[in-house]
């Protein structure tokens, strides 16, 4: 158990490799956190169960990656100290996963089911490419996680992709909502394919693929489903989000406040 300061956040000693792993871990974690909002509120009972399965898969991936990150970091950290005691600027998730998914808040409107299935699809397609790339990682632990996770990503992609097509080629209302969801989500996908120093280092030492290498297969598969869903792939814009560098959208503070509250409220607590 980390000998962390009672209520304060922990501060990490960040290496390139650690950042690389945390980007994946945090993206899975925050997306799972958002998906959990649907539990009990789904449009159909069966789909409520299905969405929770997706959340549980992602949470499992996050836990495996965070546990590995904690081991890489050393100093007695574990999955929970990383999840509940880090401060915002040391989370490295894609900004996409912070965007509202269902719940409205005091300062922002909520999302809807179209936002949800679209984001699930875009992310699952990305994660699948990531896991495939990690299956040849020089890091044995990452390889092991990837082999298991790619199966989950495949199912998520199929499930979410089918829903994207249903909504896109469904009713006028569902089509309209899906198009609106796409307009909201697309600018945040650019970040999925940025290649920075962390990516370059990972690619060079064989830890994992640089993000820009993921774009061709991702775009292929996304275009295929978009065609069936009667969606047009939007044009690229200069917008780049920066969650993977630790600089987040305004939503992140609220997400962490909710997620981390109990560990902050009960320092030294045992659960």
């Amino acid at each position, binding site marked *: 158990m980390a000998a962390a300061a009672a209520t304060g956040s922990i501060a990490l000693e960040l290496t390139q490799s650690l950042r690389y792993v945390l980007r994946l871990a945090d993206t899975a974690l925050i997306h799972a956190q958002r998906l959990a909002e649907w539990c009990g509120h789904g449009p159909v009972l069966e789909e409520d169960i299905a969405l929770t399965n997706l959340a*549980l898969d992602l949470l499992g991936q996050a836990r495996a990656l965070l546990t590995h990150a904690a081991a890489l970091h050393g100093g007695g950290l574990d999955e929970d100290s990383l999840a509940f005691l880090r401060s915002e600027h040391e989370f490295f998730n894609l900004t996409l996963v912070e965007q509202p998914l269902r719940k409205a808040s005091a300062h922002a409107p909520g999302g809807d089911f179209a936002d949800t299935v679209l984001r699930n699809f875009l992310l699952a397609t990305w994660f699948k490419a990531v896991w495939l790339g990690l299956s040849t990682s020089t890091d044995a632990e990452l390889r092991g996680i990837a082999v298991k996770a790619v199966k989950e990503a495949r199912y998520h992609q199929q499930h979410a992709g089918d829903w994207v097509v249903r*909504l896109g080629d469904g009713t006028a209302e*569902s089509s309209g909502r899906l198009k609106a969801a796409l307009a909201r989500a697309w600018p945040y996908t650019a970040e999925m394919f940025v290649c920075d120093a962390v990516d370059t280092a990972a690619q060079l030492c064989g830890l994992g693929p640089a993000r820009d290498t993921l774009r061709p297969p991702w775009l292929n598969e996304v275009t295929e489903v978009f065609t069936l869903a009667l969606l047009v792939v939007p044009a690229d814009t200069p917008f780049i989000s920066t969650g993977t560098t630790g600089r987040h959208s305004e939503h992140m503070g609220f997400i962490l406040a909710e997620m981390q509250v109990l560990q902050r409220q009960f320092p030294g607590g045992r659960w």
Partner: protein
Amino acid sequence: MYTQAMDLAPKDERTALRSIEDAQREEHFEARIAQGDFIEAKDWMPDHYRKTLVRQISQHAHSEIVGMLPEGNWLTRAPTLKRKTIALAKVQDEAGHGLYLYAAAETLGTSRDQMFAALHSGRAKYSSIFNYPTLSWADMGVVGWLVDGAAIMNQVPLTRCSYAPYARAMVRICREESFHQRQGFESLLVMMKEGTPAQQAMVQDAVNRWWWPSLMMFGPPDADSPNTAQSMRWGIKRLSNDELRQKFVDACVDQAKLLGVSLPDPDLRWNEARGQHDFGAIDWAEFWRVVGGHGPCNTERLAARVSAWDNGAWVRDAALAHAARQAVREQAA
């Protein structure tokens, strides 16, 4: 608790006139059940049996679905990733239980949409325990220990209910349910035995708030439950409300001792002569108030379900529209 439906139903819904044929059929039917025979969906059954079961099973299903909400409240605030995982799996199971039960009710000639309409309009009831708020993380553990504990006590006898689709659903549910109580109890054990004084106080406060409503889960006293005899003949009910409540209290006293929490009843004491615990008077006024719609969360619970359903209409419609379009394409191909 889930037999609340029958306890609160009007006393006798039999139509006055029955043909001689029907009377004979009903005699034969009751004889089958007395032998321990199972009734399947397409078997002849008295109208009264069918109606009672539709109400009982659908209200049991509604209880599972509404029951997702008080615990769903804490999914995004779970204190560790392991607890978050466990909580998600548990609440997910409850959705599944509701689903199995709606499916069982549908075999009796109703539809899921009709059952939702009854719930959303306020005509159908759900177990009143879910009209209480979960105010702390300790509530999650206490709900698992006490509320799921009480549910299990009701559910095991239902696995031998005469109506087989209901019995089979209950077998499935009971198999999944045991982890629900165990995870709650284990969570409390950790907080009480290894936690901080603040955590221990949180647990005791949760127990203080959930104890009496949990006892009310078993329904009104036997003297005020007019339909018990009929339900027992049909194998829908095996033990009376008071019998089950007593069993529950006796089990919980030892469990509470193990946890190191006190139960908020100054009249709770072992009665050597009876071989059971005596316990204090339940505030039945509170029970009827909550059942009548005036509990702490009745309005919010129903509003959440109505909102989820209404907001999901465009999704359900889109799926049907797409399916219809696909079917046309496949025919043309």
